[in-house]
Protein backbone atom coordinates (compact mmCIF):
# COMPACT_ATOMS: atom_id res chain seq x y z
CA UNK A 1 0.00 0.00 0.00
CA UNK A 2 1.50 3.37 -0.98
CA UNK A 3 1.77 6.01 1.72
CA UNK A 4 -0.78 8.32 0.15
CA UNK A 5 -3.28 5.50 -0.21
CA UNK A 6 -2.54 4.35 3.32
CA UNK A 7 -3.09 7.85 4.70
CA UNK A 8 -6.29 8.18 2.73
CA UNK A 9 -7.52 4.80 3.95
CA UNK A 10 -6.74 5.79 7.51
CA UNK A 11 -8.74 8.97 7.12
CA UNK A 12 -11.58 7.06 5.50
CA UNK A 13 -11.68 4.57 8.38
CA UNK A 14 -11.75 7.44 10.86
CA UNK A 15 -14.63 9.09 9.01
CA UNK A 16 -16.66 5.90 8.96
CA UNK A 17 -15.76 5.42 12.61
CA UNK A 18 -16.90 8.94 13.44
CA UNK A 19 -20.21 8.34 11.67
CA UNK A 20 -20.83 5.19 13.66
CA UNK A 21 -19.57 6.58 16.95
CA UNK A 22 -21.63 9.76 16.86
CA UNK A 23 -24.80 8.05 15.68
CA UNK A 24 -24.39 5.22 18.20
CA UNK A 25 -24.04 7.82 20.92
CA UNK A 26 -27.20 9.61 19.81
CA UNK A 27 -29.22 6.42 19.71
CA UNK A 28 -27.93 5.41 23.13
CA UNK A 29 -29.54 8.59 24.48
CA UNK A 30 -32.88 6.84 23.92
CA UNK A 31 -32.14 4.26 26.59
CA UNK A 32 -34.87 4.38 29.26
CA UNK A 33 -36.74 6.92 27.15
CA UNK A 34 -38.37 4.71 24.52
CA UNK A 35 -42.12 4.86 23.85
CA UNK A 36 -42.51 1.39 25.38
CA UNK A 37 -40.25 -1.28 26.77
CA UNK A 38 -39.99 -3.50 23.69
CA UNK A 39 -38.83 -0.57 21.62
CA UNK A 40 -36.35 0.51 24.27
CA UNK A 41 -34.71 -2.89 24.03
CA UNK A 42 -34.83 -3.04 20.25
CA UNK A 43 -33.38 0.41 19.69
CA UNK A 44 -30.56 -0.32 22.14
CA UNK A 45 -29.55 -3.15 19.81
CA UNK A 46 -29.15 -0.65 17.00
CA UNK A 47 -26.98 1.56 19.22
CA UNK A 48 -24.88 -1.45 20.15
CA UNK A 49 -24.36 -2.29 16.48
CA UNK A 50 -23.10 1.22 15.80
CA UNK A 51 -20.80 1.35 18.80
CA UNK A 52 -19.39 -1.98 17.66
CA UNK A 53 -18.94 -0.60 14.17
CA UNK A 54 -17.14 2.47 15.52
CA UNK A 55 -14.74 0.23 17.40
CA UNK A 56 -13.98 -1.78 14.27
CA UNK A 57 -13.32 1.27 12.10
CA UNK A 58 -11.29 3.08 14.75
CA UNK A 59 -9.44 -0.11 15.54
CA UNK A 60 -8.45 -0.39 11.90
CA UNK A 61 -7.45 3.28 11.84
CA UNK A 62 -5.24 2.66 14.88
CA UNK A 63 -3.69 -0.31 13.14
CA UNK A 64 -2.93 1.75 10.04
CA UNK A 65 -1.61 4.68 12.07
CA UNK A 66 0.68 2.33 13.99
CA UNK A 67 1.75 5.13 16.32
CA UNK A 68 0.46 3.79 19.62
CA UNK A 69 -2.99 5.33 19.31
CA UNK A 70 -5.98 3.14 20.20
CA UNK A 71 -9.63 3.13 19.19
CA UNK A 72 -10.35 5.27 22.24
CA UNK A 73 -7.78 7.89 21.26
CA UNK A 74 -9.77 8.42 18.08
CA UNK A 75 -13.07 8.59 19.93
CA UNK A 76 -12.08 10.51 23.02
CA UNK A 77 -9.07 12.64 22.23
CA UNK A 78 -10.22 14.53 19.15
CA UNK A 79 -12.14 17.81 19.10
CA UNK A 80 -15.15 18.66 17.02
CA UNK A 81 -13.00 20.34 14.34
CA UNK A 82 -11.19 17.03 13.92
CA UNK A 83 -14.30 14.89 13.83
CA UNK A 84 -15.37 14.13 10.28
CA UNK A 85 -18.78 12.55 10.65
CA UNK A 86 -21.71 13.49 8.46
CA UNK A 87 -23.78 16.26 10.04
CA UNK A 88 -26.87 14.08 9.94
CA UNK A 89 -25.35 11.81 12.60
CA UNK A 90 -24.81 14.54 15.19
CA UNK A 91 -28.22 16.21 15.11
CA UNK A 92 -30.02 15.85 18.46
CA UNK A 93 -32.33 12.91 19.03
CA UNK A 94 -35.42 15.17 19.20
CA UNK A 95 -38.68 13.18 19.15
CA UNK A 96 -39.14 9.58 18.11
CA UNK A 97 -40.27 10.49 14.59
CA UNK A 98 -37.15 12.56 14.05
CA UNK A 99 -34.89 9.75 15.21
CA UNK A 100 -36.66 7.18 13.04
CA UNK A 101 -36.68 9.33 9.92
CA UNK A 102 -32.97 9.99 10.36
CA UNK A 103 -32.52 6.28 10.86
CA UNK A 104 -34.39 5.54 7.65
CA UNK A 105 -32.23 7.94 5.65
CA UNK A 106 -29.09 6.42 7.12
CA UNK A 107 -30.23 2.82 6.84
CA UNK A 108 -31.03 3.18 3.15
CA UNK A 109 -27.70 4.93 2.68
CA UNK A 110 -25.77 2.10 4.32
CA UNK A 111 -27.98 -0.44 2.61
CA UNK A 112 -26.51 0.84 -0.66
CA UNK A 113 -23.04 1.79 0.48
CA UNK A 114 -22.04 -1.34 2.42
CA UNK A 115 -22.59 -3.83 -0.43
CA UNK A 116 -20.15 -1.68 -2.44
CA UNK A 117 -17.66 -1.52 0.42
CA UNK A 118 -17.74 -5.30 0.66
CA UNK A 119 -16.08 -5.32 -2.77
CA UNK A 120 -13.24 -3.13 -1.48
CA UNK A 121 -9.70 -4.20 -2.30
CA UNK A 122 -8.95 -3.45 1.33
CA UNK A 123 -9.73 -6.72 3.11
CA UNK A 124 -10.36 -5.18 6.51
CA UNK A 125 -12.83 -2.61 5.23
CA UNK A 126 -14.54 -5.33 3.22
CA UNK A 127 -14.79 -7.56 6.29
CA UNK A 128 -16.25 -4.80 8.46
CA UNK A 129 -18.75 -4.03 5.73
CA UNK A 130 -19.76 -7.67 5.44
CA UNK A 131 -20.63 -7.74 9.11
CA UNK A 132 -22.34 -4.37 9.05
CA UNK A 133 -24.58 -5.26 6.08
CA UNK A 134 -26.52 -7.78 8.12
CA UNK A 135 -27.05 -5.26 10.90
CA UNK A 136 -28.19 -2.60 8.48
CA UNK A 137 -30.69 -4.87 6.75
CA UNK A 138 -32.32 -5.40 10.10
CA UNK A 139 -32.17 -1.71 11.02
CA UNK A 140 -33.84 -0.85 7.75
CA UNK A 141 -36.71 -3.23 8.40
CA UNK A 142 -37.31 -1.37 11.61
CA UNK A 143 -36.94 2.21 10.44
CA UNK A 144 -38.93 1.55 7.27
CA UNK A 145 -41.81 0.08 9.26
CA UNK A 146 -41.66 2.86 11.80
CA UNK A 147 -41.84 5.58 9.17
CA UNK A 148 -44.79 3.82 7.54
CA UNK A 149 -46.59 3.47 10.85
CA UNK A 150 -45.88 6.98 12.04
CA UNK A 151 -46.50 8.61 8.67
CA UNK A 152 -49.81 6.84 8.22
CA UNK A 153 -50.78 6.64 11.89
CA UNK A 154 -52.54 9.51 13.61
CA UNK A 155 -52.71 13.14 12.57
CA UNK A 156 -50.14 13.99 15.21
CA UNK A 157 -47.71 11.26 14.22
CA UNK A 158 -48.08 12.27 10.58
CA UNK A 159 -47.37 15.90 11.41
CA UNK A 160 -44.32 15.04 13.51
CA UNK A 161 -42.96 12.68 10.88
CA UNK A 162 -43.41 15.16 8.05
CA UNK A 163 -41.70 17.81 10.16
CA UNK A 164 -38.80 15.43 10.75
CA UNK A 165 -38.48 14.72 7.03
CA UNK A 166 -38.48 18.44 6.29
CA UNK A 167 -35.91 19.35 8.92
CA UNK A 168 -33.55 16.49 8.11
CA UNK A 169 -33.68 16.68 4.33
CA UNK A 170 -31.12 19.45 4.03
CA UNK A 171 -28.50 17.28 5.71
CA UNK A 172 -28.87 14.36 3.33
CA UNK A 173 -27.10 15.92 0.34
CA UNK A 174 -23.61 15.75 1.76
CA UNK A 175 -23.97 12.00 2.21
CA UNK A 176 -23.42 11.68 -1.54
CA UNK A 177 -20.52 14.07 -1.99
CA UNK A 178 -16.86 13.11 -2.09
CA UNK A 179 -13.66 15.07 -1.61
CA UNK A 180 -10.30 14.26 -3.20
CA UNK A 181 -9.42 11.72 -0.55
CA UNK A 182 -12.54 9.70 -1.12
CA UNK A 183 -12.28 10.10 -4.88
CA UNK A 184 -8.76 8.71 -4.81
CA UNK A 185 -9.90 5.76 -2.74
CA UNK A 186 -12.85 5.11 -5.00
CA UNK A 187 -10.53 5.20 -8.03
CA UNK A 188 -8.23 2.67 -6.41
CA UNK A 189 -11.09 0.30 -5.62
CA UNK A 190 -10.78 0.79 -1.87
CA UNK A 191 -13.51 3.28 -1.13
CA UNK A 192 -17.06 3.53 -2.43
CA UNK A 193 -18.03 5.95 -5.15
CA UNK A 194 -20.90 7.31 -3.13
CA UNK A 195 -22.03 9.78 -5.80
CA UNK A 196 -23.33 6.88 -7.87
CA UNK A 197 -25.72 5.80 -5.14
CA UNK A 198 -27.69 9.01 -4.80
CA UNK A 199 -30.34 8.21 -7.40
CA UNK A 200 -31.14 4.82 -5.99
CA UNK A 201 -31.23 6.26 -2.47
CA UNK A 202 -33.61 8.93 -3.67
CA UNK A 203 -35.79 6.37 -5.39
CA UNK A 204 -36.06 4.17 -2.29
CA UNK A 205 -36.68 7.06 0.07
CA UNK A 206 -39.34 8.51 -2.23
CA UNK A 207 -41.15 5.19 -2.43
CA UNK A 208 -41.29 4.75 1.33
CA UNK A 209 -42.30 8.34 2.00
CA UNK A 210 -45.07 8.03 -0.59
CA UNK A 211 -46.36 4.85 1.01
CA UNK A 212 -46.23 6.59 4.38
CA UNK A 213 -48.35 9.44 2.92
CA UNK A 214 -45.45 11.86 3.44
CA UNK A 215 -44.22 14.54 1.06
CA UNK A 216 -40.76 14.67 -0.39
CA UNK A 217 -39.22 18.06 0.36
CA UNK A 218 -37.78 20.39 -2.28
CA UNK A 219 -34.07 19.97 -2.88
CA UNK A 220 -33.06 23.62 -2.61
CA UNK A 221 -31.85 23.56 0.99
CA UNK A 222 -28.52 21.84 1.65
CA UNK A 223 -26.11 22.02 4.59
CA UNK A 224 -22.65 20.46 4.28
CA UNK A 225 -19.34 20.37 6.09
CA UNK A 226 -19.12 17.25 8.25
CA UNK A 227 -16.28 15.69 6.29
CA UNK A 228 -14.10 18.80 6.75
CA UNK A 229 -14.88 19.20 10.43
CA UNK A 230 -17.28 22.08 9.91
CA UNK A 231 -20.05 20.94 12.23
CA UNK A 232 -23.33 22.09 13.67
CA UNK A 233 -23.23 23.37 17.24
CA UNK A 234 -24.57 20.06 18.46
CA UNK A 235 -21.39 18.05 18.08
CA UNK A 236 -19.42 20.09 20.62
CA UNK A 237 -21.97 19.33 23.31
CA UNK A 238 -22.11 15.69 22.38
CA UNK A 239 -18.32 15.37 22.60
CA UNK A 240 -18.17 17.33 25.85
CA UNK A 241 -20.38 14.75 27.43
CA UNK A 242 -18.82 11.75 25.75
CA UNK A 243 -15.23 12.74 26.50
CA UNK A 244 -15.58 14.25 29.97
CA UNK A 245 -14.56 11.29 32.15
CA UNK A 246 -11.92 10.03 29.76
CA UNK A 247 -10.21 13.42 29.50
CA UNK A 248 -10.51 14.29 33.20
CA UNK A 249 -8.11 11.50 34.11
CA UNK A 250 -5.48 11.60 31.38
CA UNK A 251 -3.63 8.43 30.57
CA UNK A 252 -5.79 6.17 32.71
CA UNK A 253 -7.07 2.71 31.88
CA UNK A 254 -10.78 2.01 32.21
Amino acid sequence: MSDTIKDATLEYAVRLGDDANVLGHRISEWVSRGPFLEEDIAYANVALDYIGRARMFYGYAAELANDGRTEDDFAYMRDDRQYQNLLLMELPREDFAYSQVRQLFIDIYYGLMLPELVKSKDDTLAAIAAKAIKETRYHLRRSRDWVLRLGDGTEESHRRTQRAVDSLWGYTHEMFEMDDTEQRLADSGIGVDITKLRDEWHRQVSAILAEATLNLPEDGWAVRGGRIGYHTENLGHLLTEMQFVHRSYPGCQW
Partner: protein
Amino acid sequence: MSSEQQTSLQEKQFMHKIKAEEKIEPKDWMPEKYRKNLIRQISQHAHSEVIGMQPEGNFLTRAPSLRRKAILLSKIQDEAGHGLYLYSAAETLGISRDEMIEALQSGRAKYASIFNYPALTWADMGAIGWLVDGAAIVNQVSLQRTSYGPYARGMIRICKEESFHQRQGYDIMLTLVNGSPEQKAMAQDSLNRFYWPALMMFGPHDSESAHSAKSMEWKIKRETNDDLRQKFIDQTASQIEFLGLEHPDKELKWNEERGHYDSGEIDWDEFHNVIAGNGHCNRQRLEHHIKAHEEGAWVREALVAYNAKKQAKQTEAA
Protein backbone atom coordinates in the same frame (compact mmCIF):
# COMPACT_ATOMS: atom_id res chain seq x y z
CA MET B 1 -71.12 -28.52 47.83
CA SER B 2 -71.43 -24.95 49.04
CA SER B 3 -69.12 -22.39 47.51
CA GLU B 4 -67.31 -22.14 50.84
CA GLN B 5 -66.67 -25.86 50.93
CA GLN B 6 -65.55 -25.66 47.34
CA THR B 7 -63.04 -22.92 48.18
CA SER B 8 -61.69 -24.76 51.16
CA LEU B 9 -61.23 -27.88 49.04
CA GLN B 10 -59.46 -25.87 46.36
CA GLU B 11 -57.30 -24.23 48.98
CA LYS B 12 -56.36 -27.63 50.34
CA GLN B 13 -55.40 -28.85 46.90
CA PHE B 14 -53.44 -25.68 46.33
CA MET B 15 -51.49 -26.07 49.57
CA HIS B 16 -50.90 -29.69 48.72
CA LYS B 17 -49.21 -28.65 45.48
CA ILE B 18 -47.13 -26.06 47.28
CA LYS B 19 -45.97 -28.57 49.85
CA ALA B 20 -45.16 -31.11 47.17
CA GLU B 21 -42.99 -28.49 45.44
CA GLU B 22 -45.26 -28.53 42.43
CA LYS B 23 -45.37 -25.23 40.57
CA ILE B 24 -48.55 -23.20 40.43
CA GLU B 25 -49.38 -22.32 36.82
CA PRO B 26 -51.40 -19.41 35.40
CA LYS B 27 -54.73 -21.17 34.86
CA ASP B 28 -54.69 -22.93 38.24
CA TRP B 29 -56.97 -21.96 41.05
CA MET B 30 -55.07 -19.92 43.63
CA PRO B 31 -56.06 -17.99 46.76
CA GLU B 32 -56.80 -14.37 45.93
CA LYS B 33 -54.17 -13.27 48.43
CA TYR B 34 -51.56 -15.45 46.79
CA ARG B 35 -52.36 -13.82 43.47
CA LYS B 36 -52.24 -10.31 44.96
CA ASN B 37 -49.05 -11.02 46.85
CA LEU B 38 -47.43 -12.34 43.68
CA ILE B 39 -48.57 -9.40 41.60
CA ARG B 40 -47.15 -7.07 44.22
CA GLN B 41 -43.81 -8.82 44.35
CA ILE B 42 -43.37 -9.52 40.62
CA SER B 43 -44.43 -6.06 39.53
CA GLN B 44 -42.21 -4.45 42.15
CA HIS B 45 -39.40 -6.56 40.81
CA ALA B 46 -40.21 -5.52 37.23
CA HIS B 47 -40.40 -1.84 38.17
CA SER B 48 -37.02 -2.16 39.88
CA GLU B 49 -35.44 -3.46 36.70
CA VAL B 50 -36.93 -0.64 34.66
CA ILE B 51 -36.20 2.18 37.11
CA GLY B 52 -32.78 0.61 37.60
CA MET B 53 -31.92 1.56 34.02
CA GLN B 54 -31.75 5.22 35.01
CA PRO B 55 -28.72 5.50 37.30
CA GLU B 56 -26.60 3.61 34.79
CA GLY B 57 -28.21 5.37 31.87
CA ASN B 58 -26.99 8.53 33.55
CA PHE B 59 -23.40 7.49 32.86
CA LEU B 60 -23.83 5.70 29.58
CA THR B 61 -23.13 8.78 27.49
CA ARG B 62 -20.04 9.50 29.60
CA ALA B 63 -18.58 6.00 29.58
CA PRO B 64 -14.79 6.46 29.43
CA SER B 65 -14.09 3.90 26.69
CA LEU B 66 -16.03 2.50 23.77
CA ARG B 67 -15.66 -0.99 25.16
CA ARG B 68 -17.15 0.06 28.50
CA LYS B 69 -19.92 1.90 26.72
CA ALA B 70 -20.88 -1.22 24.78
CA ILE B 71 -20.80 -3.36 27.94
CA LEU B 72 -22.80 -0.86 29.97
CA LEU B 73 -25.37 -0.43 27.22
CA SER B 74 -25.91 -4.17 26.92
CA LYS B 75 -26.29 -4.40 30.68
CA ILE B 76 -28.89 -1.63 30.80
CA GLN B 77 -30.65 -3.24 27.87
CA ASP B 78 -30.73 -6.53 29.77
CA GLU B 79 -32.44 -4.71 32.62
CA ALA B 80 -35.15 -3.55 30.25
CA GLY B 81 -35.39 -7.15 29.06
CA HIS B 82 -35.67 -8.44 32.60
CA GLY B 83 -38.34 -5.89 33.36
CA LEU B 84 -40.19 -7.18 30.34
CA TYR B 85 -39.87 -10.86 31.34
CA LEU B 86 -41.25 -9.96 34.76
CA TYR B 87 -44.12 -7.86 33.44
CA SER B 88 -44.83 -10.77 31.17
CA ALA B 89 -44.90 -13.15 34.16
CA ALA B 90 -47.18 -10.82 36.12
CA GLU B 91 -49.54 -10.48 33.16
CA THR B 92 -50.29 -14.19 33.41
CA LEU B 93 -51.95 -13.37 36.73
CA GLY B 94 -54.56 -11.23 35.03
CA ILE B 95 -53.12 -7.76 35.41
CA SER B 96 -52.10 -5.66 32.41
CA ARG B 97 -48.77 -3.93 32.01
CA ASP B 98 -50.68 -0.65 31.82
CA GLU B 99 -52.20 -1.19 35.22
CA MET B 100 -48.80 -1.99 36.65
CA ILE B 101 -47.21 1.09 35.10
CA GLU B 102 -50.04 3.21 36.37
CA ALA B 103 -49.49 1.83 39.87
CA LEU B 104 -45.80 2.64 39.63
CA GLN B 105 -46.33 6.16 38.38
CA SER B 106 -48.99 6.96 40.95
CA GLY B 107 -46.70 5.74 43.72
CA ARG B 108 -48.92 2.81 44.75
CA ALA B 109 -46.36 0.27 43.61
CA LYS B 110 -42.79 0.33 44.83
CA TYR B 111 -39.45 -0.36 43.24
CA ALA B 112 -36.14 -1.15 44.89
CA SER B 113 -35.11 1.80 47.00
CA ILE B 114 -31.48 1.43 45.99
CA PHE B 115 -32.22 3.26 42.75
CA ASN B 116 -33.09 6.38 44.68
CA TYR B 117 -29.39 6.81 45.35
CA PRO B 118 -27.59 8.95 42.78
CA ALA B 119 -24.90 7.63 40.43
CA LEU B 120 -22.18 10.25 40.70
CA THR B 121 -18.94 8.85 39.35
CA TRP B 122 -17.80 6.25 36.88
CA ALA B 123 -16.87 4.02 39.82
CA ASP B 124 -20.57 3.89 40.65
CA MET B 125 -21.03 1.87 37.46
CA GLY B 126 -18.66 -0.62 39.02
CA ALA B 127 -20.27 -0.57 42.46
CA ILE B 128 -23.78 -0.86 41.08
CA GLY B 129 -22.93 -3.89 38.96
CA TRP B 130 -20.90 -5.55 41.66
CA LEU B 131 -22.94 -4.76 44.79
CA VAL B 132 -26.44 -3.89 43.63
CA ASP B 133 -26.64 -6.61 41.00
CA GLY B 134 -24.73 -8.87 43.35
CA ALA B 135 -27.36 -8.41 46.06
CA ALA B 136 -30.14 -8.82 43.51
CA ILE B 137 -28.62 -12.06 42.26
CA VAL B 138 -28.47 -13.56 45.76
CA ASN B 139 -32.18 -12.89 46.01
CA GLN B 140 -32.96 -14.05 42.50
CA VAL B 141 -31.05 -17.30 42.75
CA SER B 142 -33.27 -18.13 45.66
CA LEU B 143 -36.37 -17.11 43.69
CA GLN B 144 -35.60 -19.60 40.92
CA ARG B 145 -37.41 -22.04 43.20
CA THR B 146 -40.41 -19.77 43.81
CA SER B 147 -43.76 -21.54 43.65
CA TYR B 148 -45.29 -19.65 40.74
CA GLY B 149 -44.15 -21.23 37.47
CA PRO B 150 -43.86 -18.17 35.20
CA TYR B 151 -42.00 -16.24 37.91
CA ALA B 152 -39.60 -19.12 38.54
CA ARG B 153 -38.92 -19.52 34.82
CA GLY B 154 -38.36 -15.78 34.45
CA MET B 155 -35.90 -15.90 37.34
CA ILE B 156 -33.96 -18.75 35.77
CA ARG B 157 -33.56 -16.81 32.55
CA ILE B 158 -32.67 -13.64 34.43
CA CYS B 159 -30.07 -15.34 36.61
CA LYS B 160 -28.46 -16.88 33.57
CA GLU B 161 -28.08 -13.46 31.99
CA GLU B 162 -27.26 -11.53 35.10
CA SER B 163 -24.04 -13.15 36.20
CA PHE B 164 -22.29 -11.01 33.60
CA HIS B 165 -23.70 -7.89 35.26
CA GLN B 166 -21.99 -8.48 38.54
CA ARG B 167 -18.76 -9.56 36.90
CA GLN B 168 -18.53 -6.51 34.66
CA GLY B 169 -19.10 -4.33 37.75
CA TYR B 170 -16.33 -6.02 39.66
CA ASP B 171 -14.12 -5.78 36.60
CA ILE B 172 -14.62 -1.99 36.57
CA MET B 173 -13.64 -1.85 40.26
CA LEU B 174 -10.56 -4.01 39.65
CA THR B 175 -9.41 -1.73 36.87
CA LEU B 176 -9.91 1.33 39.07
CA VAL B 177 -8.07 0.00 42.12
CA ASN B 178 -5.16 -0.94 39.88
CA GLY B 179 -5.18 2.48 38.22
CA SER B 180 -4.17 5.93 39.40
CA PRO B 181 -4.60 7.05 43.05
CA GLU B 182 -7.58 9.17 41.94
CA GLN B 183 -9.19 6.13 40.37
CA LYS B 184 -8.66 4.06 43.49
CA ALA B 185 -10.11 6.83 45.65
CA MET B 186 -13.09 6.94 43.33
CA ALA B 187 -13.60 3.21 43.84
CA GLN B 188 -13.39 3.52 47.64
CA ASP B 189 -15.84 6.41 47.68
CA SER B 190 -18.27 4.45 45.61
CA LEU B 191 -17.98 1.35 47.78
CA ASN B 192 -18.60 3.51 50.84
CA ARG B 193 -21.75 4.97 49.34
CA PHE B 194 -23.22 1.75 47.93
CA TYR B 195 -22.31 -0.91 50.48
CA TRP B 196 -24.94 -0.14 53.10
CA PRO B 197 -27.76 0.61 50.67
CA ALA B 198 -26.96 -2.74 49.00
CA LEU B 199 -27.48 -4.48 52.36
CA MET B 200 -30.77 -2.65 52.72
CA MET B 201 -31.95 -4.21 49.47
CA PHE B 202 -32.76 -7.39 51.38
CA GLY B 203 -35.43 -5.49 53.27
CA PRO B 204 -36.14 -5.16 56.98
CA HIS B 205 -35.17 -7.80 59.52
CA ASP B 206 -37.38 -10.88 59.36
CA SER B 207 -39.02 -9.85 62.61
CA GLU B 208 -40.11 -6.56 60.99
CA SER B 209 -41.04 -7.77 57.54
CA ALA B 210 -44.71 -7.32 56.75
CA HIS B 211 -45.03 -9.83 53.91
CA SER B 212 -42.47 -12.39 54.88
CA ALA B 213 -44.32 -15.08 56.81
CA LYS B 214 -47.10 -15.70 54.33
CA SER B 215 -44.72 -15.45 51.38
CA MET B 216 -42.55 -18.12 52.93
CA GLU B 217 -45.52 -20.38 53.60
CA TRP B 218 -46.64 -20.06 50.02
CA LYS B 219 -43.06 -20.49 48.86
CA ILE B 220 -43.18 -17.26 46.92
CA LYS B 221 -40.09 -16.40 48.94
CA ARG B 222 -37.74 -19.27 49.65
CA GLU B 223 -35.28 -17.74 52.08
CA THR B 224 -35.67 -15.00 54.65
CA ASN B 225 -34.36 -11.46 54.31
CA ASP B 226 -31.76 -11.94 57.00
CA ASP B 227 -30.48 -15.25 55.62
CA LEU B 228 -30.08 -13.80 52.17
CA ARG B 229 -28.39 -10.69 53.53
CA GLN B 230 -25.94 -12.85 55.48
CA LYS B 231 -25.01 -14.70 52.30
CA PHE B 232 -24.28 -11.42 50.60
CA ILE B 233 -22.23 -10.06 53.50
CA ASP B 234 -20.19 -13.27 53.58
CA GLN B 235 -19.43 -13.35 49.89
CA THR B 236 -18.69 -9.64 49.63
CA ALA B 237 -16.13 -9.50 52.45
CA SER B 238 -13.43 -11.37 50.54
CA GLN B 239 -14.24 -9.48 47.34
CA ILE B 240 -13.59 -6.18 49.11
CA GLU B 241 -10.39 -7.52 50.55
CA PHE B 242 -9.19 -8.67 47.12
CA LEU B 243 -9.71 -5.16 45.79
CA GLY B 244 -7.53 -3.81 48.58
CA LEU B 245 -10.27 -1.41 49.63
CA GLU B 246 -11.27 -0.57 53.15
CA HIS B 247 -14.42 -2.34 54.34
CA PRO B 248 -17.18 0.19 55.05
CA ASP B 249 -18.40 -1.89 58.00
CA LYS B 250 -15.94 -1.31 60.83
CA GLU B 251 -17.62 -3.92 63.00
CA LEU B 252 -17.35 -6.71 60.48
CA LYS B 253 -15.79 -9.76 62.12
CA TRP B 254 -15.60 -13.44 61.26
CA ASN B 255 -17.54 -15.60 63.69
CA GLU B 256 -16.00 -19.03 63.70
CA GLU B 257 -18.83 -20.57 65.65
CA ARG B 258 -21.59 -19.39 63.30
CA GLY B 259 -19.44 -19.82 60.22
CA HIS B 260 -20.53 -16.35 59.15
CA TYR B 261 -19.45 -12.76 59.47
CA ASP B 262 -20.93 -10.68 62.25
CA SER B 263 -21.67 -7.20 61.03
CA GLY B 264 -22.61 -3.73 62.17
CA GLU B 265 -26.21 -2.60 62.28
CA ILE B 266 -27.78 -1.02 59.23
CA ASP B 267 -28.93 2.57 59.60
CA TRP B 268 -32.63 1.78 59.55
CA ASP B 269 -33.58 5.43 59.83
CA GLU B 270 -31.93 6.02 56.51
CA PHE B 271 -33.69 2.95 55.10
CA HIS B 272 -37.12 4.21 56.14
CA ASN B 273 -36.31 7.76 55.15
CA VAL B 274 -35.42 6.81 51.58
CA ILE B 275 -38.46 4.56 51.27
CA ALA B 276 -40.57 7.44 52.53
CA GLY B 277 -39.45 9.45 49.53
CA ASN B 278 -36.53 11.43 50.88
CA GLY B 279 -33.78 9.82 48.83
CA HIS B 280 -31.85 11.99 46.40
CA CYS B 281 -33.63 10.63 43.38
CA ASN B 282 -37.09 9.38 44.37
CA ARG B 283 -38.95 12.11 42.54
CA GLN B 284 -36.48 12.34 39.70
CA ARG B 285 -36.75 8.62 38.88
CA LEU B 286 -40.52 8.68 38.71
CA GLU B 287 -40.62 11.93 36.78
CA HIS B 288 -38.17 10.50 34.25
CA HIS B 289 -40.37 7.44 33.83
CA ILE B 290 -43.55 9.46 33.51
CA LYS B 291 -41.98 11.87 31.04
CA ALA B 292 -40.76 9.07 28.77
CA HIS B 293 -44.15 7.39 29.00
CA GLU B 294 -46.02 10.57 28.16
CA GLU B 295 -43.66 11.46 25.33
CA GLY B 296 -44.23 8.00 23.92
CA ALA B 297 -48.02 8.28 24.05
CA TRP B 298 -48.39 9.63 20.53
CA VAL B 299 -46.16 6.84 19.20
CA ARG B 300 -48.31 4.17 20.81
CA GLU B 301 -51.43 5.88 19.55
CA ALA B 302 -49.97 5.95 16.06
CA LEU B 303 -49.36 2.21 16.19
CA VAL B 304 -52.93 1.53 17.16
CA ALA B 305 -54.29 3.88 14.50
CA TYR B 306 -52.07 2.36 11.82
CA ASN B 307 -53.17 -1.11 12.83
CA ALA B 308 -56.84 -0.11 12.64
CA LYS B 309 -56.34 1.32 9.14
CA LYS B 310 -54.57 -1.81 8.02
CA GLN B 311 -57.36 -4.03 9.35
CA ALA B 312 -59.96 -1.87 7.67
CA LYS B 313 -58.11 -2.20 4.36
CA GLN B 314 -57.95 -5.96 4.75
CA THR B 315 -61.66 -6.17 5.50
CA GLU B 316 -62.37 -4.01 2.49
CA ALA B 317 -60.25 -6.23 0.28
CA ALA B 318 -61.93 -9.37 1.58
